[in-house]
């Protein structure tokens, strides 16, 4: 397994280096125009046209640049994003509450059977994963799927997790727990089941929040990723279902990051903050940066090399873990 993972990381690195879009890519007659691109992004292309467009983009550096620019622009559309988010929230809360009640009902009388019938969360079979990939479920199904995977594996395990994280609950979650305690009034029982329901709700609220806030930093291992929310750094080891806070000791707002492996991650922030962790975020080292300027992005190559962009668009790079900085991008990056 280790060898496969190491080799996957090598492939990841090679892909990162080799798939760079050449700067002089020229447009051809087959290239997408703005109308086609907009239709594609809004789901306005029928299947054959969509497949043809995607096939062209896969091999056309110019259209890849265009799609890249468009995707960034699209994610900057707060009004529409807000509309979507609100739309989701309007049904997410009642749906989650209803699902939690159903889950409690299912968990109580048939607890053993439920545990046996559903595989442990991390061990989702390839076949089921493949099914989901081929036919991505709508958001609602996704959330329910997430909910069932969160609840089913082991209620007792969830109880322990909830207990261990009790001190870290945020106010809203505490209110939620209280509300659920009132809703799920099963006094004789089932603190465990109630905890599971609360935990499931918490997991879903975290998922919802992840869509709306925070900057996510993926690593080559899709299960391991970081997230920045203001001054807070969080890490997930299960693909983003659950997040754990990793203290950095930094008071400045963090803005971006880059993870080159499941262990090596760089994070930058305001007032020249550059952080490096080489142990998966267990500890963080503050790297000296030559200016007290806000940093807006980072692109790392390894634990020694990173290029950071300042808020005013300048690029600095280091290849010796911050011992020296040059006002240039990294070469062959």
């Amino acid at each position: 397994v280790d060898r496969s993972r190491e080799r996957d990381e090598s492939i990841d690195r090679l892909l990162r280096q080799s798939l760079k879009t050449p700067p002089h890519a020229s447009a051809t007659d087959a290239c997408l125009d703005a109308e086609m691109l907009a239709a594609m992004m809004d789901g306005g292309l029928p299947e054959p046209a969509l497949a043809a467009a995607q096939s062209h983009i896969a091999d056309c550096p110019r259209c890849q640049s265009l799609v890249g620019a468009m995707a960034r622009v699209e994610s900057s559309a707060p009004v529409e994003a807000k509309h979507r988010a609100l739309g989701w929230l309007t049904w997410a809360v009642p749906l989650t509450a209803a699902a939690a009640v159903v889950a409690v009902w299912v968990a109580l009388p048939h607890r053993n059977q439920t545990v046996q019938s559903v595989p442990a969360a991390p061990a989702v079979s390839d076949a089921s994963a493949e099914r989901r990939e081929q036919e991505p479920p709508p958001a609602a199904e996704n959330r329910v799927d997430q909910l069932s995977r969160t609840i089913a594996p082991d209620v007792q395990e969830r109880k322990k997790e909830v207990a261990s994280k009790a001190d870290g609950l945020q106010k809203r979650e505490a209110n939620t727990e209280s509300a659920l305690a009132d809703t799920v009034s099963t006094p004789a029982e089932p603190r465990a089941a109630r905890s599971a329901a609360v935990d499931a709700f918490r997991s879903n609220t975290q998922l919802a929040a992840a869509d709306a806030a925070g900057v996510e930093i993926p690593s080559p291992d899709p299960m391991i990723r970081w997230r920045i929310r203001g001054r807070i750094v969080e890490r997930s080891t299960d693909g983003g279902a659950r997040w754990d806070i990793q203290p950095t000791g930094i008071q400045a707002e963090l803005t971006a990051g880059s993870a080159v492996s499941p262990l090596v991650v760089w994070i930058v922030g305001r007032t020249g903050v550059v952080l490096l962790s080489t142990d998966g975020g267990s500890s963080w080292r503050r790297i000296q940066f030559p200016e007290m300027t806000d940093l807006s992005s980072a692109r790392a190559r390894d634990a020694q090399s990173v290029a950071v962009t300042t808020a005013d668009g300048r690029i600095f790079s280091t290849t010796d873990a911050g011992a020296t900085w040059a006002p240039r991008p990294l070469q062959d990056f």
Partner: protein
Amino acid sequence: VLIDARLVDRCYRQAKGDQWRTPKERFARALEASAERAFAGRVEDAREIERYVTSLHLEDLALACACAAGDDAAWEHFVLTKRPVLYRAADALDSTGSARDLADSLYADLFGLRTEGERQSLFRYYHGRSSLATWLRAVLAQRYVDRLRTDRRAEPLPEEDSAIVLRAPSRPMEPNRDRYLELMCAAMKRATAALPARDRLRLACYYAQELTLAQTGKVLGEHEGTVSRGLARTRAAVRKAVEHDLAEAGLKEAEIVQCFESVSEDAGPLSVRDLLDTGGTESVRKETVTDRSK
């Protein structure tokens, strides 16, 4: 594509065309142009055409028609509601604000110029298959990318003394590293070329464009988690194909390990893209010498 007059009327009402005094003939022509583009000259039955035109963003199409016709109220509404859209998009493209001039320059093209008695506006390229806001963002993104490409062509080559001095690797380099890396690159080129287009597009979005999982998902119409799983699956498939390719080339297991380690180490001054483009040992060595001389 001819569209039935009753269907035009229905679409016109649905589009609230009266609101902007959109000329119905212009609106009908816009529907026909949209259908012609979508069906690319194919003859479709009336039901299919009806299904298509009623699925369009009709209100936006009516507004675009009215603006193209020069209606003042429509223009005022358009500028009021869409200027923030354009500016936000411009700032997303370039946080220094330099893309805003592109946004401003769009207005002239949208307003249009009179050619042979008829105003020719950029709006004629809007066919209602997306929202007007998405189309505007796409036009802006297209102009931005084209300007970037033009600017890059005009950029002078960096002077030698301004280049970063590359340090020697901390440990002795494997003498056959260039060869191993070349083999890896060639194997990977074959492996990625054999992937389905959708998988290659996912790789391009994530690695070449450095989009986030969410942004990549938006391009592909996939959930973020599906993108993540798709990338992991594709990476594993490429790895297996590379391993198979190297073994087929007669490499022993120890050499295959060396091949992968050649990538794990700092790739140094080798240009992997050039390796992929040429696949020639000579070019590899030449570039190595050139870069190390800096």
